[in-house]
């Protein structure tokens, strides 16, 4: 991952050092971009409830780990200072760790999510030569497509465990900049926040039947991205 970032940084420096001048995207133009997105999850969740095993304060909790993935998307400039954007990415898998009383257990699950997000962006004039800031408001849909309890998760839960996460709709906002190398190529950086909340159910098969633990996770993700864009 470090290698990828250094290559991106190299490309950015090259773009900065170029002497060519560039205007921001033209009305009616499309831009596709590809880059890296780091999802910095700051999850909050109440202690797991239900089940037969009671734990003292602060209870058995979960914490969702960060992940970096390949991000890509499409931007359509529908007015001089306005664009519509669809943000996609390769679905990132997040490690889920024990927290609270379960702090020392380590990774207890893996969840893979698909978080497509649409934005309407407002683009400002150049802040520095070739550097165009923008802000955007949008809507995020997070679809949890693959979940798995690890052997450690099963050990704590008391048997083979299936994890279910409800899908989430929520508002999203981001700020960013476009560093326009020329009319075709640009470098785009963003910092985004999305409102992602999901109900977690962990269903464990024990000798006495199924046991279900529940909590609601507020993911509170900050997503930092750096991408290369191609406009046409």
């Amino acid at each position: 991952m470090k290698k990828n970032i250094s290559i991106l940084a190299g490309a950015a420096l090259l773009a900065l050092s170029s002497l060519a001048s560039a205007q921001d995207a033209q009305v009616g133009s499309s831009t596709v971009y590809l880059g890296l997105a780091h999802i910095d999850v700051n999850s909050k969740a109440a202690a797991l409830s239900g089940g037969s095993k009671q734990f003292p304060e602060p209870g058995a909790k979960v914490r969702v780990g960060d992940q970096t993935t390949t991000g890509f998307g499409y931007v359509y400039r529908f007015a001089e200072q306005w664009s519509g954007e669809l943000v996609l990415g390769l679905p990132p898998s997040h490690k889920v760790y024990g927290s609270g009383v379960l702090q020392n257990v380590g990774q207890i699950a893996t969840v893979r999510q698909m978080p497509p997000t649409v934005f309407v962006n407002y683009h400002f004039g150049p802040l520095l030569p070739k550097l165009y800031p923008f802000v955007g408001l949008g809507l995020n849909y997070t679809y949890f497509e693959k979940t798995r309890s690890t052997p450690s998760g099963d050990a704590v839960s008391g048997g083979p465990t299936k994890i279910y996460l409800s899908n989430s709709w929520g508002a999203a906002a981001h700020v960013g900049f476009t560093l326009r190398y020329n009319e075709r190529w640009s470098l785009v950086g963003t910092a985004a926040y999305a409102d992602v909340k999901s109900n977690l159910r962990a269903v464990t098969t024990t000798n006495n039947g199924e046991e279900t633990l529940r909590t609601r996770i507020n993911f509170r993700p900050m997503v930092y991205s750096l991408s290369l864009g191609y406009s046409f």
Partner: protein
Amino acid sequence: MNRHFPLAGLALAASVLLSACGGGSGADSDDQPAARGTVVLGQLGGQATIEQINAGTAAKGIQSLTGAAKCGVDVHYVYYMTRDPGGNPATASTAVLLPSGTDASCTGSRPVLLYAHGTTTTKSYNMAQVTTNTEASLVMAFYAAQGFIVVAPNYMGYDRSGLNYTPYLNAESSAVDMIDGLRAAKNYLTSAGTATQPSKKLLLAGYSQGGHVAMATQKVMERDYASEFTVSASGPMSGPYNLVGFGDTIVSPQGKVNAGATLFLPLMLTSYQKAYGNIYAAPTDVYQSPYAATAETLFPTDTPVADLIAAGKLPNDTTFTKLFGTGGLLTDSFRSGYATSNYRKALQTNTLLDWTPKHPIAMCGGANDPTVFYAINTTAAKTALSGKGVPVTAYNLEDATSVGPTVNGAFLQAQAGTSAAAGGGTAGAAAVQGAYHGTLVPPFCNVVVRSYFQQVLAAGG
């Protein structure tokens, strides 16, 4: 040229980006599980004062054996990470009974007794419940109140453990659990910074199933963990050390079924089926109907055994000996195929006669034990393990020349008391049989073993 440079960089960056895929979701991308002996939860559960301990031993009439308490006891509880027989992460819990008080024998660095409890079918069994758990209160009075730090794991499958069976009489797995429980207890006491801390002296003891566990732990510790732990001595009590010989006795048509067999066999069959996978293709291969439907997942459970019998899940026999025949637990084909069965091979694997102890062993039991037969287990183990360089003793409570006239006399008197309370005669004899393994022998063997440990420690062992 200048223009091509960034484009080449872009192409390269794009190809690298496409290979960054957001992390795998497969098991191969999982973090390593937490280390064995990692403390998940440790807490002080309660305290027993000297007065409370003395009141308890007086009420049970065993204070002449335990002695008056020198120390109060802080009852700690530790929930920890270990590994199941397949090497997968597992959780288990242990009691840590810590001497407290001002007596010199209760403070500073104290020897550790790693204690292995006897068979229980009760899922919520917890050696930290010293007020309600008879075995825990006995161990507290005999050892913790006399200055030993007692670490008493509950075993995988019990209490908060996530394992949905227990690796019953699985020598290697039991040793791993005991070792990790000891590690977790020591980690916990270090981080808790308690005034009383473990010394390097380590003693191993256990009763019944725990006798087997204690001996297995010594074997594995001396073989694989010699740089981490040094066993001063062990005191396995009333244990089935010779599982294959014991099994041959119980299962052979000419043999004798031991008291408790209908509880022990489901525990063993499930344990070995989980560990080795080849004991049966289907439960109906070994269990009669209707027991086959539920026997595999019957234990551990918090449903009382009487309720299980009432529900038709165990043979209706309060001596728990109805192993074979009409209405019995196991099939005739299991019995007839026993000699060449994988079950017998599993018993052989877990038999503890073929190893070389590096530190002294003092076994103890009663020769008339109807539950774990003495001669086939204790005498056989003494014969097999003796003459290998360290003292191996077998104390027989029925023999005055073995345990001395005082202990022997008191043991015989306790049996007479139990018999008389039941009205003597046949009823009295039955009462003695019923109480022999679980009630009569334990306090006497513990006094013998503790005395042996004190001698070993006094001699610098």
